[in-house]
């Protein structure tokens, strides 16, 4: 199959699914919401279809999908409880939810996402699940950075990566093998459903692991000086208020956030350097602030909170 064949066939599948849900479909255009190497997402009216990344593990995706279906208060529930096949890809179907407006990040629902994460982290896994894929994705970004060859900005990023404990580099099991985690939290992973409440989307990295990973991307943005402290505080306070178990209820949260926030800062820096190189430009101001944070990590070894934690 060529990449060109996927999109029209996926569009046909999403139209079929939409019409099976709503026979009297208004039948507007079918839109492409995302078309990236890690997934293609199309929408027809109130129905969405996602073609998952090539090579996705069918058994693991089926378990992740089943878990999301059992957690309708946290995840957008899938329309079909098992993935379908389309060419060499796995396809899942979802109701459409309204995302956070990327042009208005100030409207980010920090309290809502914190409450969803706290609920997810407190819920026992409803089905046996593989490991949360956050560290594996970070490792993949670093592998791509290495493949770039010698780039000046890469030095401090690779050194910061090397200083991390093996579990954070996906080279050893995570110290927590039971807590449910999203695995790839960012503001694009939230949608508003009918009635106005928010749900998490994207089950590709869902699994069991260290729940601080799900807090660590906002933590990293804050540490890099990019996310204002007020917003980081709103997120952290709301997570604690909702009884989230990833960080202690009070005091310094960095004992557990330090390692995952470093790993996600490295992952972000690695992707940014690769992207800047592909665009044939130098890293911009924001990208430099993430690379600079990696450089500062050299002076302070990672905190060993998870080294001995069971």
């Amino acid at each position, binding site marked *: 199959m060529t990449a060109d064949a996927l999109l029209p066939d996926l569009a046909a599948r999403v139209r079929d699914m939409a019409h099976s849900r709503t026979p009297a479909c208004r039948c507007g255009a079918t839109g492409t919401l995302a078309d990236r190497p890690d997934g293609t997402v199309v929408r027809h009216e109130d129905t969405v279809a996602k073609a998952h990344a090539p090579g996705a593990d069918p058994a693991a995706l089926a378990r992740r999908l089943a878990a999301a279906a059992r957690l309708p208060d946290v995840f957008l529930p899938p329309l079909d409880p098992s993935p379908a096949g389309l060419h060499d890809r796995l396809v899942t179907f979802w109701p459409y939810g309204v995302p956070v407006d990327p042009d208005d990040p100030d409207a*980010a629902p920090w309290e809502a996402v914190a409450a969803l994460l706290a609920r997810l982290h407190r819920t026992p896994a409803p089905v046996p699940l593989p490991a949360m894929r956050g560290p594996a994705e970070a490792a993949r970004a670093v592998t791509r950075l290495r493949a770039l060859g010698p780039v000046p900005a890469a030095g401090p990023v690779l050194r910061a990566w090397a200083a991390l404990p093996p579990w954070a580099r996906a080279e050893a099991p995570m110290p927590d093998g039971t807590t449910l985690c999203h695995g790839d939290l960012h503001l694009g992973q939230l949608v508003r459903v009918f009635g106005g409440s928010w749900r998490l989307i994207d089950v590709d990295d869902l699994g069991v692991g260290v729940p601080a990973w799900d807090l660590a991307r906002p933590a990293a943005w804050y540490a890099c000086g*990019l996310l204002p402290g*007020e917003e980081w505080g709103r997120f*952290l*306070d709301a997570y604690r208020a909702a009884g989230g178990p990833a960080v202690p209820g009070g005091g310094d949260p960095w004992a557990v956030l330090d390692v995952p*926030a470093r790993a996600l800062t490295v*992952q972000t820096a690695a992707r940014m350097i690769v992207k800047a190189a592909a665009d044939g430009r130098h890293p911009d101001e924001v990208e430099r602030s993430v690379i*600079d944070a990696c450089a500062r990590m050299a002076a302070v070894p990672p905190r060993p909170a998870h080294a001995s934690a069971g």
Partner: protein
Amino acid sequence: MQCPKCRAPMHTYNRNGVQIEQCSGCRGIFLDYGELESLTRLEAQWSQPAPPAPPAAPQAYPATPQPPAWGAPHGGHYGHHGRHKSFGRMLFSS
């Protein structure tokens, strides 16, 4: 009274409730019995540690925890008005 040292007239002053005589010529000071102790007591009160500062005025939001040791220098890169487009993209991507 006259200054025992230079014989100029001495004037009485009240310093924090303690009467002292000071010479109008050489500025020397004469203390009566117990006045030195009174001044020492007063001095001790002044040099005690200041009472704890009143709690900081409530902020618009509870004080945020400090960033980690490798965090950005004070202030960071963000501003109150308008975010960098690149940061906006970052918030929405892996």
